[in-house]
């Protein structure tokens, strides 16, 4: 027997329900989207905010971490738009085409939409949602019941809609710059859709930032579909302000003979949850799923992923690294699922944490769920302090303690970042690592 006992609503849950009611007029139209939102919000109402007894959220008790829900962000005014101009510049060297979302709203005047590469189209999700036939693809398996995704569906306002035509190679990377510039705490629910046709190629950067001292909340979803023989290099950078709550979900599917590379780099935010659901739907596809987190103070960052091998002959590699200082906490939950017919699956997953202080914490839960018999799969996890023998070797060569530590931390993160195909992106991330280390003193 399965008895569901719902506790009383928390303040945050109540505020979300109030917001859904208050914005009903806007959210209910058009009818098809309205129905989608209703169903999604009903799922949220049934479960409430996830807490530690919900397996997928075991280490990130959102009910405890999200004390209150802040008001939905209003459309950005002139000042808020102006303040967004310099966002995402840390990675300018990549020469990417900028698509700017201010407080979750697509800002064409800040975006670079001129001379689009042949085969590339860019639009706003708000336009799509306003059309009666503006369907939004459903979430793939692992996350269709997820509370954060449900909330996003219920409240999503805008985002980018990007399509790459079959056979098109988009030479210039795209950069979705998500920035919060509001003056008072607000909640942003953005969703972007990216469709990469058969034989098409693209590099997509996604960065998130906002004010250092504002308790804003971001719930962002990126839905990616890569066709047969498509190649996508995706890098997400979380540089949110120090009081921000960021829940970002990547839902990706890939066809046959495709190459899907995704990397999530977390350096900012008070509470960060990056969730990834990747479904390999076509044979002989290779997926590289990686991440690195640099955490200090009381930061909490959770990378939770499910890589679903739905068909035979696919390869996936998952490598996540975290550097944890102060009282910070890093969480890794990774699962490789191998469906009954997915023979010859090759999947390897690893999570490594470097703990820089006594009170730093790292939790790792790598899992394999294998229903096929002819597969090669493995996982591992390590957590520990910097190796004293290594440090001594460096110091014996004249390198002072802090510099020796920095060298080792850089090397540790560098091994993960190395997997990113775009050199300028790698460079920008390693610059960020240097900056983080410099601030460590």
């Amino acid at each position: 027997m399965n008895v569901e006992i719902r506790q009383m609503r928390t303040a945050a849950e109540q505020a979300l329900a109030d917001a859904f009611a208050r914005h009903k007029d806007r959210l209910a139209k058009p009818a098809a989207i309205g129905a989608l939102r209703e169903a999604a919000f009903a799922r949220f109402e049934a479960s409430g905010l996830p807490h530690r007894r919900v397996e997928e959220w075991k280490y990130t008790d959102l009910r405890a971490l999200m004390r209150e829900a802040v008001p939905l962000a209003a459309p950005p005014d002139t000042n808020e738009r102006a303040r967004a101009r310099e966002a995402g510049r840390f990675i300018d060297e990549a020469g990417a085409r900028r698509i700017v979302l201010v407080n979750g709203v697509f800002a064409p005047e800040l975006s670079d939409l001129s001379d689009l590469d042949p085969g590339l189209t860019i639009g706003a999700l708000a336009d799509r949602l306003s059309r009666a036939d503006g369907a939004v693809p459903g979430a793939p398996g692992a996350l269709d019941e997820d509370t954060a995704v449900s909330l996003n569906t219920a409240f999503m306002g805008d985002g980018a809609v990007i399509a790459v035509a079959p056979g098109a190679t988009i030479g210039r990377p795209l950069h979705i710059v998500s920035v919060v510039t509001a003056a008072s705490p607000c909640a942003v629910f953005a969703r972007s859709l990216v469709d990469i046709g058969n034989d098409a190629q693209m590099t997509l950067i996604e960065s998130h930032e906002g004010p250092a001292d504002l308790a804003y909340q971001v719930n962002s979803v990126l839905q990616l579909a890569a066709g047969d023989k498509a190649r996508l290099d995706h890098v997400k950078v979380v540089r949110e302000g120090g009081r921000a709550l960021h829940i970002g979900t990547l839902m990706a599917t890939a066809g046959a003979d495709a190459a899907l590379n995704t990397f999530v780099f977390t350096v900012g935010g008070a509470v960060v949850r990056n969730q990834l659901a990747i479904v390999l739907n076509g044979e002989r596809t290779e997926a590289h799923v990686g991440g690195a987190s640099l955490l200090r103070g009381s930061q909490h960052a959770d990378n939770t992923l499910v890589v679903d091998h739905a068909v035979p002959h696919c390869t996936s590699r998952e490598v996540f690294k975290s550097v944890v200082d102060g009282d910070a906490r890093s969480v890794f939950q990774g699962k490789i699922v191998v469906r009954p017919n997915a023979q010859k699956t090759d999947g390897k997953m690893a999570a490594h944490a470097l703990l820089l202080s006594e009170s730093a914490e790292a939790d790792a839960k790598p899992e394999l769920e294998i229903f096929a018999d002819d597969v090669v799969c493995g996982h591992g996890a390590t957590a520990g302090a910097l190796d004293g023998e290594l440090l001594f070797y460096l110091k014996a060569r004249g390198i002072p303690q802090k510099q020796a530590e920095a060298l080792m931390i850089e090397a540790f993160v560098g091994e993960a970042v190395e997997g990113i195909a775009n050199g300028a992106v790698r460079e920008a991330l390693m610059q960020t690592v240097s900056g983080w280390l410099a601030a460590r003193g």
Partner: protein
Amino acid sequence: MLLEIKNLHVEIDGKKILNGLDLAIEQGKVHAIMGPNGSGKSTLAYVLAGKEDYAVTEGDILFNGESVLDLDPDERAARGLFLAFQYPIEIPGVATMTFLRTALNAQRKARGEGELSTPDFLKRVREAAGKLEINQDMLRRAVNVGFSGGEKKRNEILQMAMLEPRLAVLDETDSGLDIDALKIVSEGVNRLRSPERAFIVITHYQRLLDYIVPDVVHVLSRGRIVKTGGKELALELEASGYAQYQSEAA
């Protein structure tokens, strides 16, 4: 005196390893230290380099007349102490080139000297590496990762050549080397011999001392120097072994 070790007592985890060791080394000299396994040779080397795990319970180490016991390993290195490790450490993710450059510039900075320019640095590395028959590919690889035993030892000598220490301690640098590599490494050491620089060569084998001819040979047993002589002492030991010294020290 470049190095003076006086009545040195060292413990690790409450276990006494060095028991009143005395040793004095003048600049320009090569001292060989031989002794049975477990007698404390590597311990001495580590304590000189400043490894924190060891507790000095008595005695002192003077380098250039100054006690170094309170100095961190990097400070000792900047003053000219160098240890070639018996078991060189692998450093994943740090290219040998980066490592050499970081170390050299850190030492120069500590001594108040300016950083070496990129062309100057590259010229010096290439020259030093060439003489030790270390190829460019190895310099690009992570420090010691995937290096053969002999390559690791040669890499230690390369570091020594780049850092130009006043006192170099070579802990069994000959072990694991084939005959050709032994020659290359010995020549590398001999090239660095100068009136200002001294060496402590720790070894089990007389053969190394045919190439690097020592001025003084010591026998270390049970944490003390129990016998000191000229280079002929190494030959005697080769013939008679350590039995007599172990019982003497006991």
